[in-house]
């Protein structure tokens, strides 16, 4: 496949994913949140009882679909390749801080694009911070940063995460009493598309993202490192797809899916500095991990236990965010959240430095 074909496929995948994300809002997801890997993992953590924020508890089928979309596509294309063993504890910690940064901003990089497509200009500050974080990460990459290589693992090891994901789907469908669901009208956790639609949307996006290697972080990283535009075309195509679909829905349904401005945006706050710093932490930590939260889900479906560990870190981070009052709300960031983002930036710098300037990397 030539680079031109790869770019064409990337644009196609991005447009379709953008449209799917926009349609999920029509079917019931919160506005500008057709997809948000951070928010959806946070909701899932709440449903599993890892935190007790009653407004954000629901097992999001989109997450399950993303993993299985990638898993099935990888199996079909003979790309299912269980690997792992590359600094798992460091990845867990970085995953936690990615979540803390994302919940300061109120969205992962994927939702950042969808917020822009819904007219939320606060996301521009997030985008600026995200790009700065990636630039800091690229600096360390160029200086020799490495979490060391991964190694081939057994098929059984690669299958553990998909099986766990299947178990979570079973809990969603069975809905036993110990699983928590936000009550109707009590918060974003209660706003969701029907399970089957969410699941199919997740499967489709997971399969497309696996084929296209879509990554929100990789787009800016590759542009800076290699002057290569392919991945960032996917980023742009999602924005265009979701924006056009939002405008069409606004014009045809009588409900507004596009509201340009800073104030009164859905599930968002207007503190520009902390929107910037939250996404800076997310961008920086994601470069150190080698991919955005969406990409981590896709890689876990391909058999990467390193990415599975990162997702456990994201889940733990989500639990900490709500148990320790770190997550922002529409009212703005919290003092605890600001402290956690600063700690996260320092921790990411230390992790980057330690894994860059050790003797063997300096050779």
């Amino acid at each position, binding site marked *: 496949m030539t*680079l031109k074909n790869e770019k064409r496929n990337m644009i196609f995948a991005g447009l379709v994913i953008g449209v799917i994300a926009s349609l999920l809002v029509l079917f019931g997801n919160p506005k500008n949140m057709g997809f948000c890997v951070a928010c959806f993992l946070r909701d899932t953590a709440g449903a599993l009882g890892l935190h007790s924020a009653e407004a954000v508890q629901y097992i999001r089928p989109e997450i399950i679909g993303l993993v299985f979309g990638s898993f099935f596509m990888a199996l079909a294309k003979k790309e299912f390749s269980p690997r792992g063993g590359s600094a798992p504890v460091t990845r867990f910690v970085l995953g936690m801080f990615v979540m803390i940064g994302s919940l300061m901003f109120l969205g992962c990089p994927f939702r950042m694009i969808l917020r822009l497509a819904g007219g939320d200009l606060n996301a521009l500050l997030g985008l600026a911070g995200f790009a700065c974080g990636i630039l800091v990460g690229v600096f360390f990459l160029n200086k020799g940063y490495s979490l060391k290589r991964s190694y081939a693992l057994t098929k059984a090891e690669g299958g553990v995460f998909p099986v766990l994901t299947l178990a979570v789907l079973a809990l969603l469908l069975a809905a036993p009493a110990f699983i928590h669901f936000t009550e109707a009208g009590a918060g974003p956790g209660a706003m969701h598309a029907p399970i089957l639609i969410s699941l199919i949307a997740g499967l489709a996006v997971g399969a497309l993202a696996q084929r296209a290697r879509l990554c929100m972080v990789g787009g800016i990283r590759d542009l800076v490192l290699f002057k290569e535009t392919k991945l960032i075309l996917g980023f742009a195509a999602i924005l265009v797809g979701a924006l056009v679909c939002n405008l069409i829905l606004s014009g045809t349904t009588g409900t507004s899916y596009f509201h340009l401005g800073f104030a009164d945006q859905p599930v968002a706050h207007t503190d520009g500095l902390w929107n910037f710093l939250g996404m800076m932490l997310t961008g920086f930590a994601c470069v150190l991990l080698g991919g955005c939260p969406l990409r981590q889900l896709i890689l876990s479906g391909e058999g990467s236990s390193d990415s599975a560990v990162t997702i456990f870190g994201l889940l733990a981070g989500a639990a900490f965010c709500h148990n320790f009052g770190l997550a922002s709300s529409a009212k703005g960031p919290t003092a605890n959240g600001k402290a956690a983002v600063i700690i996260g930036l320092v921790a990411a710098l230390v992790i980057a430095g330690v894994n860059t300037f050790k003797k063997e990397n300096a050779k």
Partner: protein
Amino acid sequence: MTYIATFFSHFGAIRYKKLCDAQGFAARTMPVPRSLSSSCGTCVRCEGGFVEPSGVCAEEVDRIAEVTEDGYVFVYHSEEHAHGT
């Protein structure tokens, strides 16, 4: 002839490129072509030849493929691939 080397880490690619530069092969780092791997990592494109991986470098190189009109022909595999894993 053109060769593309893929790696287990970005750092491995940077180190291999320096090795190619030192041995006089024109080499540049770039994103791994999708048709070669589902990894979104960094590869090294070498013109005219490639450095046979050995020592520490061999631990980092996954595969090396010659670019032909019909696609990629692998000329080097890491031990993992040699054992079919």
